[in-house]
């Protein structure tokens, strides 16, 4: 089966091409093309995954480009980590395709939507199967393209245009880091292949400083893609895209690619403490920072977006603290429950046609399936015991603690509290109380939308059991099979679980008090600490600062340069031309029509010649 694995990414690509060419004719039927062509890879991914479970890694490559004596190859690689990613990606992608069939019903550009989804799925599958850094980078950019196109799907909305542009450019800033890191690694190692790089790292061919530098540069790429500080601002804006897109790209798969990148390059990071610390600190700070913003947002999707940023920070924190398995584990569970939350949110939006949680309420009764599913997701992400998020978050906290990063550990605990709080703030405001919206008829979504949610709901509950200290550490064993992954211990102190559980329950309880019971005033913070609350509400004014400093700065600089270009660079040229014309004018003035002047000029010329010759020839000396 492995030798046919390369077909996996090509199926969605086929879907993309078919829909581009035939979309006009297929119209609504396009959805089926997209769904079938992601169903096949899903099946294949499972086959590959289970094949991998028992077998060896697989790698196949062909020459792609020759640079001097270095041959750059293109191919696929199947190892434990990426076969797991294959399953996650193709599963979520398939479910989102399915869901979109219902969600996008009636939109006239359905073929285009499914084409873009196909392109994205192709790129994401290609990314995880890449055997070398260059190929990974290429697909890395292509998933960015998919994200860009889908964020801007509602092209006529200026906000969507803005958001798409922002997403592309912000991630590109990070990509440049990856680009440089990749090139530096190439000149150190002489190859883009992961294996060669790890060999070079292991054999100490690279200096320690160079390892740190390249690792951090590669991490910059991950920062951009995974929306970590300070390049996180595009991700909330990316919510301008259709909600299924948010679920697929901006929750489950693409944004997790940054985490995947760090995980893939883990031997490189592991060789440098400074790099690991950077990853951990950025992750930890992002986790609490984004969670705090999530507390005050009013847009259902934005809350989820900040939650995603925060959770990605968690994963980074795990990786930076040596919790390789914990990071990947959380990536997996998060993919399921966050996709679930987004799809549920989409279902809500589908029903009430607004994203403002102030205009929702009491939907639990009306949305009989969405409500409970959302609740499952919320509980999972909050780390409610025995749900998937509980296990993975637990391991992250344990890894952080064991690594001795106590500051970050407590930050993570607080972030966990925030997470529980804002998720249930969301839940209570949307699903309980009275309906505050304007929509008259609120219907539950059709089965094609709820089915994927149910699947994800089941996974959100059960996915945690693949790696627990109680039932078995399947995931750790599996990931540990590849020689690349260093193992983190799973023997965490029990009190960490207890504290984490208490904290998340406290968060849920606080949310209950404020938003359900009303025992505490909602605007307690804004009344007592107005400045703090407005800072948080406005996302710490980071967007504004970026706009004022970087965007304006670049624009002013550009404008200044274009003035220089126009007036100085061209001015010099124009000046030269003007000088020529001035000289010409002067010359033609001398041509005054007086015949005697002409003779005189000749005579004076002659005398000058003679004089100069006499002087220079030494006649007078």
């Amino acid at each position: 089966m492995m030798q046919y694995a390369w077909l996996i990414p090509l199926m969605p690509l086929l879907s993309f091409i078919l829909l581009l060419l035939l979309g006009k004719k297929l119209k609504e039927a396009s959805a089926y093309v997209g769904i079938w062509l992601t169903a096949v890879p899903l099946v294949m991914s499972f086959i590959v995954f289970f094949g991998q479970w028992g077998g060896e890694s697989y790698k196949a490559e062909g020459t792609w480009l020759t640079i001097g004596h270095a041959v750059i190859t293109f191919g696929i690689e199947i190892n434990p980590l990426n076969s797991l990613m294959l399953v996650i990606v193709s599963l979520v992608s398939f479910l989102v395709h399915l869901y979109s069939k219902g969600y996008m019903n009636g939109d006239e550009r359905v073929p285009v939507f499914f084409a873009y989804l196909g392109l994205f799925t192709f790129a994401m599958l290609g990314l995880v199967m890449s055997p070398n850094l260059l190929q990974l980078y290429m697909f890395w950019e292509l998933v960015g393209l998919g994200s860009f196109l889908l964020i801007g799907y509602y092209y006529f909305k200026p906000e969507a245009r803005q958001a798409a542009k922002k997403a592309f450019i912000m991630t590109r800033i990070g990509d440049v880091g990856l680009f440089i890191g990749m090139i530096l690694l190439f000149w150190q190692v002489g190859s883009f292949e992961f294996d060669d790089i790890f060999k070079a790292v292991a054999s100490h061919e690279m200096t320690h400083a160079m390892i740190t530098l390249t690792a951090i540069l590669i991490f910059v790429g991950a920062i951009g893609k995974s929306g970590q500080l300070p390049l996180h601002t595009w991700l909330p804006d990316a919510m301008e895209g259709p909600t299924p897109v948010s679920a697929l790209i901006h929750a489950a798969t693409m944004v997790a690619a940054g985490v995947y990148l760090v995980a893939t390059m883990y031997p490189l990071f592991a060789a440098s403490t400074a790099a690991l610390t950077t990853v951990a600190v950025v992750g930890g700070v992002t986790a609490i920072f984004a969670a705090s913003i999530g507390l005050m947002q009013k847009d259902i999707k934005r809350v989820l977006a900040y939650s995603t940023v925060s959770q990605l920070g968690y994963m980074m924190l795990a990786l930076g603290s040596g919790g390789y398995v914990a990071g990947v584990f959380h990536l997996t569970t998060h993919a399921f429950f966050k996709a679930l939350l987004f799809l549920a949110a989409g279902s809500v939006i589908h029903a009430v046609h607004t994203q403002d949680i102030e205009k929702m309420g009491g939907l639990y009764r009306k949305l009989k399936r969405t409500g409970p599913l959302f609740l499952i997701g919320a509980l999972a992400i909050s780390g409610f015991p025995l749900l998937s998020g509980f296990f993975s978050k637990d391991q992250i906290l344990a890894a952080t603690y064991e690594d001795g990063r106590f500051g970050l550990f407590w930050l993570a605990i607080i972030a966990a509290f925030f997470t529980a709080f804002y998720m249930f703030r969301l839940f209570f405001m949307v699903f309980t109380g009275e309906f505050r919206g304007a929509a008259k008829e609120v219907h539950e979504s059709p089965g094609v939308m709820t089915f994927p949610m149910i699947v994800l709901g089941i996974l959100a509950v059960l996915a945690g059991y693949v790696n627990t200290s109680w039932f078995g550490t399947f995931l750790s064993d599996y990931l540990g099979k590849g020689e690349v992954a260093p193992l983190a211990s799973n023997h965490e102190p029990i009190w960490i679980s207890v504290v984490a559980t208490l904290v998340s329950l406290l968060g849920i309880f606080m949310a209950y008090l404020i938003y359900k019971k009303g025992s505490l005033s909602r605007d307690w913070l804004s009344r007592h600490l107005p400045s703090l609350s407005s800072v948080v509400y406005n996302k710490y004014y980071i967007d504004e600062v970026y706009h004022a400093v970087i965007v304006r700065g670049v624009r002013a600089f550009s404008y200044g340069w274009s003035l220089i270009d126009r007036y100085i660079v061209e001015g010099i040229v124009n000046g030269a031309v003007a000088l020529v014309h001035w000289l010409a004018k002067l010359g033609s003035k001398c041509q005054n029509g007086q015949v005697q002047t002409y003779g005189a000029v000749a005579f004076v010329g002659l005398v000058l010649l003679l004089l100069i010759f006499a002087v220079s020839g030494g006649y007078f000396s």
Partner: protein
Amino acid sequence: MELETIRSYDWGIMAPELIILGAATILSLADLLMPKKASRRYLAIFAFLGVACALVALFMQLDNGVISILADTYRFDSFSKAFKLLFLIGTGLILLLAFDDRKGERDEYRGEFYYLLLTALLGAMMMASSADMITLFVGLELLSLSSYIMAGLRKRDRQSNEAAFKYVVNGGISTAITLFGMSYIFGLTGETNLYAIQNALGDPTILQNQFLLVFAFLITFVGLSFKIATVPFQMWAPDVYHGAPIPVTAFLSVVSKAAGFVIMIRFLLVTFIAAPGVAEKPLLQEVQPYLAILAGASMIIGNLIALRQRNIKRMFAYSSIAQAGYILVPFAVISGLMFEAVWFYLLAYLFMNIGVFAIIQLVTAKSGSTDISSFAGLYRRSPWIAVCMTIFVLSLAGFPATAGFIGKFGIFMSALSTGAHYWLAGIMIATTVVSYFYYFNVIGQMFFRSEEEAGKVSIPGGVLTVTAVCVISTLVLGILPHTALEFFYNQFDLSQFFTPTK
């Protein structure tokens, strides 16, 4: 001098000159004897036949070696052959041009033009063949005097009068200056024969008067620069070219200019080749910077002022000053490529400049104005004429696939062959770029502007021939330059040039 001696001369070698002389005499008599009302146009055909016969005669003698007769005053060598060829071709084309020039003038004076043109040609040919200062001078004056009259041929035309008067005054002054220089050269050597002077100047005794010698050289050079219209004696050219009838302008800018270069090379180079300078260096090397400066100044002044011209004749007058500056470069930096560079460029210049004036004559006759706007929209009106004009102008600007480019390439080669004349080549190239402005202004008028007046320009036979010959030659010399160059190398052995007849 014995009759015997006279009879012993090989008069056959003078056949081209004699044919021209004869034709001029017969024309002047015919013009005198013809009835007043009779059309003189057909005299042009006779004159043209004369030139053609002379050309044939010249070709028949191509294989001859160096022969000198008349006590070494007349010398037939490769140099004279090569340049007489230019004069004859140029004059022939101008005669064809004049045949169709009907502008304004009554027919009765046309006859004068034809025989004056022939006498001017005779003067030029004598210059090419002279080996003596006196005959050189007489040839020069024959050319000059005929040209003065031709410039003022339109007696009723104020501009023509004024041009002629300016020409004669400046010409007189230049003659005096030239002669003044020559008198010192004679004084220092006591000889008038060029090769005898060469010999005498090579003698070390001349070293007592080295300064005087250089002065004499510079004075003569400045005097002669009148003929080629370069700095400092260039200012008359625009006015005279402007005022004179177009065929005369063409003659002045092509044949007369070529003759000026001939006398310069013949006289200054032969006589001063062995002369010592003030410092250790030979004289010719010592004056190089001065000549180079003058050449550079000509290019700069010509090309700059041409930018401001609205009158097409004046524009090409300034252009011809610049062109003369280019041709002066190989002379200023004397190298092994000098003769072929000068000769080839003059040949190219002959075709392209006569071509230009042929078309100017056509177009301005149609519009009645010599303003550049008469060319507006020419491409729409008469595309072929516009294309031909474009080819000529591109050639003057030195674009490849035209004769002008090969000519310029040769000049560059000679400028850069012997050491540090990069700055001169630099000036040449920079002013060439400046010249694009006005050359392409003409092209722009023809192609980009819309026509101000409707009407196709019709081409009479004579001008058609001239244009066709010029276009074909310009292109052939540009694409297959070896046709001319090999002819030059095979037929003309210029090593004869510096050595006296045995």
